[in-house]
């Protein structure tokens, strides 16, 4: 048998049922690895040793009485953006360094109900605002493939934990690429579902019309297993859709012969590194060999997605983050002299630089006299971007291209220029604005660093995405490659 930390969740579930090992054994194995190696990668903010072992024991008891389930006794990690009752939830911020939620997020409750074993909470860019994990109050996460490079962000801790084999799988959230880009940079599989597929209740809000939670795993099969558990209607999230959840694992083995894959010319222009382009083209050729038909398409407004996003996301963030005022929970400044001082000093001391910058941009874009020029304009552009995709999906089933313009970059490489960092998400942001589902898959390497292939599906077509991804992974082994030697 492979070492326990090399097993996928599908394999772990099978071996737990066969009593090859107990949930306590595999959970203990991961907790030991985290204790030994987390200082190298900094991918966990909190580790819940006792909670994990108790959940593992409960799962072992259930398995002994004949219980079965795809996540029963399976260890995993949650991004530290999901509220976990009794377990500190920081969102990567000083503002919530002391926050112990009194309730579980719906995603957390669903996975708990299935007997999944949470190992701990993973590091992230502060309030999910970043593409490199450099904005976390708890320090940067290191990319397990090269410790001098970033893991991507904002779900960088989740991506690094899975890549470093410190968790078999993790949850993430994606507002502008925060699942897909770190998945690409760390060589793992990540899925952002259709907006409304997964409940946002208890997921600390960044930009509510864009935020969506999803799985970060080694394989498409594992992503399907996790998505089965995470998805579904929730009355506590007013934007969660009431559409039946199919079994995402049921269709993984279907042939993709005849599948039409659109290749947007805008995703292969001069902004994309030539070696990256060649690597992605090689991956597309694999899909062609499986019977898919590549079709040239256009997404003419895609260049406008970054500008529109950097109005809409900060505007929503400035509103969402107004709740952090030092009164009901979280950080409070010392010795406030009056109420105004309490609010202003709490927020000025509690938020990091990038978060403050985005609140300012958002407040400015929403302010009297600028609303039409910025916010309204961005929402109009957003519709144009969606229409591009709607037109494309009249001709093709799936759209494919690179996930990021380059592999993982060095710490500090983007310097002090926020715009340079924002452009890291040029291929991922349009999908959030349109609300579509999309995945990133390990699809090759460049300078020994992982390269991600992005697949974008039509609304609620996660089954087709996962099927395509799984078929790709049956003929490639990029998803099995590991930066870990021990």
């Amino acid at each position, binding site marked *: 048998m492979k070492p326990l930390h090399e097993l996928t969740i599908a394999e772990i579930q099978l071996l737990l049922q066969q009593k090859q090992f107990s949930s306590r054994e595999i959970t203990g194995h991961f907790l030991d690895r985290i204790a030994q190696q987390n200082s190298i990668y900094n991918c966990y903010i909190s580790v819940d040793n006792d909670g994990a072992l108790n959940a593992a024991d409960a799962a072992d008891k259930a398995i002994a009485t004949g219980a079965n389930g795809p996540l029963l006794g399976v260890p995993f990690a949650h991004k530290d953006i999901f509220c976990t009752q009794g377990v500190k939830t920081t969102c990567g911020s000083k503002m919530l360094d*002391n*926050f112990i939620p*009194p309730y579980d997020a719906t995603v957390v409750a669903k996975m708990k109900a299935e007997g999944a074993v949470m190992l701990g909470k993973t590091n992230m860019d502060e309030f999910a605002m970043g593409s490199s994990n450099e904005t976390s109050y708890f320090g940067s996460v290191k990319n397990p493939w090269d410790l001098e490079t970033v893991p991507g962000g904002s779900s960088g801790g989740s991506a690094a934990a899975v890549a470093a084999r410190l968790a078999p799988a993790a949850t993430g959230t994606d507002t502008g690429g925060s699942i897909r880009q770190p998945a690409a940079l760390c060589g793992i599989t990540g899925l952002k579902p259709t*907006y*409304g597929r997964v409940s946002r209740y208890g997921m600390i809000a960044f930009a509510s*019309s864009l935020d969506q939670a999803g799985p970060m795993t080694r394989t498409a099969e594992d992503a399907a297993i996790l998505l089965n558990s995470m998805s579904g209607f929730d*009355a506590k999230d*007013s*934007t969660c859709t009431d559409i039946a959840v199919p079994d995402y694992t049921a269709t993984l083995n279907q042939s993709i012969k005849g599948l039409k894959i659109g290749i947007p010319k805008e995703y292969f222009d001069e902004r994309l590194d030539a070696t990256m382009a060649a690597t992605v083209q090689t991956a597309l050729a694999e899909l062609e060999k499986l019977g898919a038909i590549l079709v040239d398409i256009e997404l003419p407004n895609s*260049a*406008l997605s*970054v*500008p529109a996003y*950097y*109005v809409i996301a900060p505007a929503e963030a*400035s509103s969402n983050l*107004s709740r952090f*005022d030092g*009164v*009901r*929970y979280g950080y409070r400044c010392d010795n406030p*002299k*009056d*109420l*105004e*001082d*309490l*609010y*202003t000093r709490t*927020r*000025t001391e509690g938020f990091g630089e990038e978060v*403050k*910058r985005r*609140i*300012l*941009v958002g*407040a*400015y*874009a929403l*302010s009297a006299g600028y609303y039409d*020029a*910025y916010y*309204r*304009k961005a*929402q*109009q*552009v*957003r*519709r*144009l971007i*969606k229409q591009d995709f709607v037109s494309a999906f009249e001709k093709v089933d799936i759209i494919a291209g690179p996930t990021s313009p380059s592999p993982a970059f060095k710490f500090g490489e983007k310097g*002090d*220029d*926020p*715009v340079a960092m*924002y452009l890291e998400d040029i291929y991922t942001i349009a999908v959030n604005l*349109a*609300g*579509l589902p999309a995945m990133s898959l390990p699809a090759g390497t460049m300078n020994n660093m992982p390269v991600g292939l992005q697949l974008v599906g039509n*609304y609620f077509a996660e089954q087709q995405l996962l099927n395509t991804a799984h078929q790709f992974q049956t003929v490639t082994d990029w998803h099995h490659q590991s930066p870990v030697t021990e």
Partner: protein
Amino acid sequence: MTITPEQIAITAGLAKLKIDGDEAIEVAKRIGAILELVDQMQAVDTSNVEPMANSLDAVQRLRVDAAIQPENPIDVRDTLQQIAPATEDGLYLVPKVID
């Protein structure tokens, strides 16, 4: 569009953040670069385009207008207030507003 350090300080005040002096000059420079990026949108004609707030054009889901009481309201309040920086008799404490 450019933004001045004075506008930064005013906007920060509205968002209950304190950014002034040299910091406002620095922040104005960075936010100016973001606004320059954002201004690329202005080149597009959107005169006949309906703004889109929700990607599925979903509207607010409504439920029956009836109060939902938690099973034990006092316990909920106590639980929620345990994580508050300062409370007294079930109330949140803030600095005195009126003398």
